[in-house]
């Protein structure tokens, strides 16, 4: 074992093994299943960490190992694994968060008799996500891409007896599938245009000008549609807030830290393709920017603690897309950096929220209040998460968000820049609204909430530490991570940006926090101060801009209507034609049957008529044998 990377293929296999074991033994495992899962993810994490450390040096070569899988009409399709800077980092993030969530769930899911099933799904998800990250070609990526989707679907629908969970699971699967089809088409088109599924072959083809510009743009946009679906970007974002029907650890792992980031990862992994098409990049940037502000504005008014976090996730993912699309290589580095820090602090926030829900037995923040007194640890950790996401120095969110804003500014995209700043203001406001309403003031609960057990707080503490310190890996004056990530790629990485940008953004964030403080803690401003003045806007935001209703009227109902109409057609026209044929035959036969009346004389008559006709016919025709 001279090189760790050569064994990277083992990383996803640990959770797979755990999954197989758990399925084989089924529910009789009880909590043993949890320990199997934790052990497997721990093994993955350790291996991923070693791999990462080995990679974390300049000049490390990409490691690529394909094996024959099967042949399509003489063409060898390979499976394999690859270790690059990007996915080495992703491996660590995924396996780490996954491991922490595995541990946390032991406390959160305690007492649920379907605990082994939960851990089966979690293990399968971890396997799929790690497999997705380690894939060296698009086909393999797509396979795992769908698998993580299905795990997400299963976990959202974990409380299958709740109709909301059922609807949410269905919605999650179908909406992401719409995006997946884009990716599906992109993979096929790229295969015919470049003759390969493998990233590197495709990039080489792009570089060598094998593809026409419109082909590159089309392929890139189709891939991006896949990313939009997975990362909950506008207009396919509707599934993500609904997905909060799943158990909270799942929300933390899948719908905040890892799977939804897969869209961002996909764009990053195929960045060379995107880079070749300015149009595609613009699409990415504007969709990302719009989603960032759009989701943030919805987050302002939501009352469900997990839904607020969900919209903040959508918004933050929009940020990453914005960075990837708008700002070239620096944006690429910034986007990935934000992906990493976001994974930590958003997972932290969700786990903390889970801890709160665990104690409060409700998800409506206005039914909580005053949790700080009883839940010091959770409260502190939640505060850390809020500060991080709001972009207050020196928390990790500050550094990554700063990097994004700087890069966008540097790229000269002022429109996008101000959108991002505004989104940051919104973010700060609704996160602290959440914090103040939940943790300060009088308790609205009729029972005394209790602090969560150690098995739940410990993972949160680890994430809390990371949420604080992770930012220092890539400071503007020493972008270690950025340089490492973009090693071997062409482009300018050092940014000369005016210092006022940082000041302005932090001020905006502080303003958001302050506003939230005044409205929800000090109550010097009425809660209805804004919503009372522009109720239309408030309603619009609270109802998520009626997007769900819009989709319902534009797509779902017409589709069902078409279905009913077509069903009618099938019944009466298509099958009707069949029945008509049958009936015609039947009535002709009926005529014949009337002749067949049992009267011997009628038979005789028919015979005679037939004989006469035959003779006449044969006489006229002159007989068959002339």
């Amino acid at each position, binding site marked *: 074992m001279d090189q760790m990377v050569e064994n990277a293929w083992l990383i996803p296999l640990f959770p797979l093994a755990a999954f197989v074991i758990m399925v084989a033994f089924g529910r009789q495992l009880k909590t043993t299943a949890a320990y199997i899962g934790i052990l497997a993810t721990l093994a993955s994490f350790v291996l991923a960490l070693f791999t990462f450390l080995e990679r974390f040096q300049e000049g490390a070569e990409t490691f690529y190992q394909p094996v024959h899988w099967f042949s399509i009409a003489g063409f060898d399709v390979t499976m394999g694994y690859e270790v690059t800077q990007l996915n080495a980092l992703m491996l660590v993030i995924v396996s780490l968060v996954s491991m922490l969530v595995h541990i946390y769930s032991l406390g959160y899911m305690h007492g649920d008799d379907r605990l082994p099933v939960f851990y089966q799904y979690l293990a399968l998800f971890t396997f799929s996500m790690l497999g997705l990250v380690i894939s060296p070609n698009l086909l393999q990526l797509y396979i795992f891409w769908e698998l993580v989707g299905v795990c997400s679907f299963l976990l959202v629908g974990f409380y299958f007896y709740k109709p909301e969970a059922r609807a949410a699971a269905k919605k999650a699967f179908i909406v992401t599938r719409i995006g997946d089809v884009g990716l599906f088409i992109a993979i096929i088109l790229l295969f015919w245009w470049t003759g390969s599924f493998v990233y590197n072959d495709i990039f080489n083809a792009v570089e060598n000008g094998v593809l026409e510009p419109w082909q590159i743009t089309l392929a890139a946009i189709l891939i991006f549609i896949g990313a939009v679906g997975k990362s909950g970007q506008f207009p396919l974002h509707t599934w993500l807030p609904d997905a909060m029907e799943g158990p909270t650890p799942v929300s933390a792992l899948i719908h905040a830290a890892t799977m939804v980031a897969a869209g961002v990862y996909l764009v990053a992994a195929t960045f060379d393709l995107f880079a070749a098409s300015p149009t595609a990049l613009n699409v990415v940037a504007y969709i990302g920017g719009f989603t960032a502000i759009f989701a943030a504005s919805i987050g302002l008014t939501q009352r469900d603690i997990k839904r607020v976090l969900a919209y903040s996730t959508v918004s933050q993912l929009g940020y990453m897309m914005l960075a990837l699309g708008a700002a070239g290589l620096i944006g690429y580095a910034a986007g990935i950096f934000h992906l990493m820090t976001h994974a930590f602090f958003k997972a932290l926030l969700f786990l903390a929220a889970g801890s709160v829900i665990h104690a409060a037995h409700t998800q409506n923040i206005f039914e909580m209040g005053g949790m700080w007194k009883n839940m010091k640890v959770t409260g502190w950790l939640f505060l850390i998460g809020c500060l991080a996401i709001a972009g207050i120095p020196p928390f990790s969110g500050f550094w990554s968000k700063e990097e994004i804003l700087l890069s966008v500014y540097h790229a000269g995209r002022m429109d996008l820049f101000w959108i991002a700043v505004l989104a940051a203001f919104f973010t700060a406001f609704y996160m602290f609204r959440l914090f103040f309403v939940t943790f300060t003031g009088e308790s609205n609960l009729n029972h005394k909430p209790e602090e969560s057990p150690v098995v739940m707080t410990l993972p949160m503490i680890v994430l809390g530490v990371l949420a604080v310190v992770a930012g220092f890996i890539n400071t503007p004056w020493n972008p270690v991570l950025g340089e490492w990530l973009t090693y071997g790629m062409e482009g300018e990485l050092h940014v000369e940006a005016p210092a006022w940008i940082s000041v302005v953004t932090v001020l905006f964030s502080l303003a958001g926090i302050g506003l939230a403080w005044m409205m929800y803690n000090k109550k010097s401003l009425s809660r209805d101060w804004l919503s009372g003045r522009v109720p239309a806007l408030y309603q619009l935001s609270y109802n998520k801009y009626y997007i769900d209703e819009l989709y319902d009227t534009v797509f779902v109902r017409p589709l069902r209507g078409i279905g009913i109409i077509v069903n009618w057609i099938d019944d009466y026209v298509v099958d009707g034609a069949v029945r008509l044929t049958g009936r015609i035959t039947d009535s002709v036969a009926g005529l014949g049957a009337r002749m067949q009346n049992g009267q011997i*004389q*009628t038979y005789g*008559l028919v015979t*005679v*008529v037939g*004989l*006469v006709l035959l*003779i*006449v016919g044969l*006489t006229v025709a002159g007989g068959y044998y002339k």
Partner: protein
Amino acid sequence: MSGEFIAFFILSLFTIGGAVFMISFTRVVHMVVSLAFTFLSIAGLYVLLEAEFVAVTQVIVYAGAVAIMMLFGIMLTPHREQEEDAGRAQKVVAFIAVAAFFLIAFFIIQGTTWDPSVHHFTEDNTTMIGKTIFTQYVIPFELVSVLLLVALVGAIILAKREENDSE
């Protein structure tokens, strides 16, 4: 015009007349009587055709046995005064069909050139028939006798009143 022609003319007139009367009478007994008349005339025709044995047989079997049997049949089953015929439509169709058949056959008979030669039997008719039947056609003859026997038995069984029927 020879006597043969006159005889043929009268006999065939009776034959056809009897048949037509049989069809058009409405009472069953009249029908049978007119049919018997036809049978006898046909026997006469056979004589003209130098088939004396057949003629005698015709008289015995048809005019005698069959007509009498028919009378029995009529007497043993109920009959209305006026016999109903088939519906009008069926009658018309049947008439057209039969007429068409008649015309076709008529034109075929008329259109065919028949060998004008006439065969005169040198031997006694009964002797000839006897010889031929018991030499050349002995097997069909035996078969026919078996058939007659079977018909006899069958007719008896069919006509016999069933035991539980009378109760």
